[in-house]
């Protein structure tokens, strides 16, 4: 039976934890609003970009473009986007598990695997693993910028063109809503003619007759400049989604923690009151016992 003082201290401790988790919940909620707004501001750009790419790529001959070249996959690179900070529930663990599963599957097919880690959490995990980490970018998730995406894009395009890797997959935490975030794969390279958000690759559909656009320069040349940019756009999209998902996951995790704290405080208060009453009863018994003894 813990003493009264022990319980009292314990209650005070849990209360402090509750205050912290409550504050973190509110901070995460505020940051989530910002991250969500950035995601939404980015959407028109991404959508327009994807639409134009689709139109151009549909007419293009995949063999003419090194970035569309389908080779036998000897080595696959996963660009894993996680958060920099923890305390957001199973969010990062889910992403890391998904990455692990994917890497094991590919390795069992005899393909080489490598990772590019964006975000501290994934990097910290895979640094200690046996997998090769070709690059990392940490401490940027709080304020994701285009130039971050551009840098990653340049590095992976370089690896792809040098034929160091033959396929590049992007793995990020897709923001579905505030309570659901899902680890999602998207293929970055080689770029396929059926572009867009779909995870399933569709067979290239026939292209209808388009409006007679004037292309300047030729469609192929435009495509050549746009393709690396498209890779950057997809990476940035993944980073923005992950940033929003992280805050949403943290909000939920901290909400749960706050609830657990109040449950604990409730139970501890009950125990405290019981112990207090037991002590009073015991004292009364002593007094009564003493009085009886004097009488006799």
């Amino acid at each position: 039976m813990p003493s009264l003082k022990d319980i009292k201290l314990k209650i005070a401790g849990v209360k402090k934890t509750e205050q912290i988790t409550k504050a973190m919940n509110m901070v995460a909620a505020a940051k989530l609003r910002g991250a969500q707004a950035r995601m939404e501001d980015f959407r028109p750009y991404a959508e327009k970009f994807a639409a134009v790419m689709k139109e151009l790529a549909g007419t293009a001959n995949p063999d003419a473009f090194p970035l569309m070249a389908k080779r036998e996959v000897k080595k696959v690179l996963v660009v894993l986007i996680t958060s920099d900070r923890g305390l957001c529930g199973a969010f990062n663990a889910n992403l890391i598990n998904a990455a692990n599963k994917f890497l094991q599957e590919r390795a069992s097919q005899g393909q080489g695997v490598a990772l590019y880690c964006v975000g501290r959490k994934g990097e910290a995990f895979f640094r200690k693993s046996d997998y090769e980490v070709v690059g990392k970018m940490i401490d940027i998730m709080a304020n994701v910028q285009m130039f971050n995406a551009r840098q990653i894009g340049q590095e992976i395009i370089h690896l792809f063109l040098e034929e160091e890797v033959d396929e590049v997959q992007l793995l990020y935490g897709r923001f579905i809503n505030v309570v659901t975030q899902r680890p999602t794969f998207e293929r970055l390279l080689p770029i396929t003619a059926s572009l867009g958000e779909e995870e399933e690759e569709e067979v290239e559909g026939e292209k209808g007759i388009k409006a007679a656009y004037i292309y300047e320069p030729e469609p192929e040349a435009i495509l050549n400049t746009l393709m690396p940019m498209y890779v950057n756009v997809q990476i940035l999209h993944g980073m923005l989604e992950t940033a929003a998902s992280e805050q949403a996951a943290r909000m939920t995790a901290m909400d749960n923690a706050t609830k657990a704290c109040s449950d604990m405080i409730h139970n501890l208060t009950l125990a405290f009151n019981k112990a207090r009453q037991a002590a009073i009863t015991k004292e009364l018994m002593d007094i009564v016992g003493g009085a009886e003894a004097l009488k006799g």
Partner: protein
Amino acid sequence: MANKIMLEIVTPNKLVVSEEVDLATLPGEEGVFGVMANHAPLLSSLKIGELHYKNDNQTVYMAISGGFCEVSNNRLTVLAEAAERAEEIDVDRALKAKERAERRLQQAAAQKENIDVARAQAALMRAITRLKVAQEYRGAA
């Protein structure tokens, strides 16, 4: 309405401009060109450079970096990685970026590194464009 074209400039961060204009001049891959109302459908990639548009005798100057534009249905959509109005340009930052890029180019030339050269050149172009747009038009505006 009849003689104007809808101009939209979109960057990853936000919708920068959305208004009807008389004329927009863009830094195309193969040279500067202007777009006016009822232009034929066009798709062009853009260089790092200056863009200006004119509306009721007021001209707005901007520095844009990389992207493309599409004209269809009397609507001009510009997708750029960055777009800033002349008065928004941070001259100090651009100057620093210019110095940094120049230094990096020198280093790269000495070491024969390939990846960084393209990046440094692009950075240098962006910085020079920003400075040019800011200096030329800040006084005039």
